[in-house]
């Protein structure tokens, strides 16, 4: 699971209406797989995501220096863009857990072989 898709995931348990995004990541195993850097794609992608949620998540995974907001001249900031490429496209979480941050819910979703299971039970729909 890339952090890219994590940015699109939330807790959909019935009645879990607030504080259900982004999901908290617990990593048991992760790998980096290098892939071709395409500057224009990363620039467009960054603008599609919820950057605040991404920043929150990256910080929770131990990177304290990650910016809270998209830097002003990010389009030309090669270092920033390459960092984003590494975080969004090259980092894969193979085994771990996603947890709903809502204290009344805290539902966990497992990640196995890089694939998160978001299927809800009958009672949760």
């Amino acid at each position, binding site marked *: 699971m890339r952090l890219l*898709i994590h940015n699109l995931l*939330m807790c959909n348990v019935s009645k879990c209406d607030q504080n259900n995004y982004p999901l908290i990541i617990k990593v048991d195993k992760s790998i980096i797989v290098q892939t071709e850097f395409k500057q224009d794609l990363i620039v467009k992608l960054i603008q599609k995501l919820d950057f605040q949620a991404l920043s929150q998540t990256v910080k929770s995974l131990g990177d304290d220096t990650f910016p809270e907001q998209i830097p002003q001249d990010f389009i030309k900031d090669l270092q920033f863009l390459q960092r984003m490429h590494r975080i969004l496209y090259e980092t894969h979480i193979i085994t771990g857990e996603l947890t709903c941050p809502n204290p009344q819910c805290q539902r966990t979703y497992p990640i*196995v*072989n890089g694939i998160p299971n*978001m299927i*809800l039970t009958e009672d949760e729909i």
Partner: protein
Amino acid sequence: MININLSKLEKQNVYSPNDDSYLFQEVLIEEANQHQQLSSIVEVGCGTGILIGSLIHELNKQNKSPLISLAIDINYDACIVSQKTFDNNQIKCEIINTNGLQGLNKKFKFDVAIFNPPYVPTEPDELQNHLNYFKEKQQLFKKLIDEKVDGEQFIEQIQKVNLIDVSYSGGKDGMYMTWNIIDQLIAVMSNQGIMYLFHINKDIYLLFKIILSRILLNI
């Protein structure tokens, strides 16, 4: 064309590309010419990954790689096969094991949605059987997680409950499973979004009318 290889066991558990898949694949490859740079594409029920995989592959060739690609399947075995398809063909696509769009933040909209739904009419008791398998599969999943099984071992064990029936069994009229997902997809389409939907029905105009009214209800 992309390569799809399934082991004998995978063929038992995951819907192998068939006539419907190949026709749909042709259409998607042809359609790739029409698309500008796409932000996001999603497929519900990706199976082997042939459809979304072929579209991405073609878009890559034309230098129009989507920013975000997402393949969804309710069957974990299909997710694993799709992952292999994407890896073997240098296709960048995310994969989630879920039921319809459960777990997705609906504020994110997609430019393209692909859905080749289950559509074979199925008797109620047969359908109930399939739903029971689904529950069983989820219970097995949880059991394996609790026992801290992962990797190849997990893949082997989870295959023991076979979910292939959900890929074709459509319940009453063959549409029982389908409407719910169509509605979910309509809600996450972007303004100029396109949904590709495969259907075999003698009354195709009725289908158009129903879908159109659902779209209008959603606005």
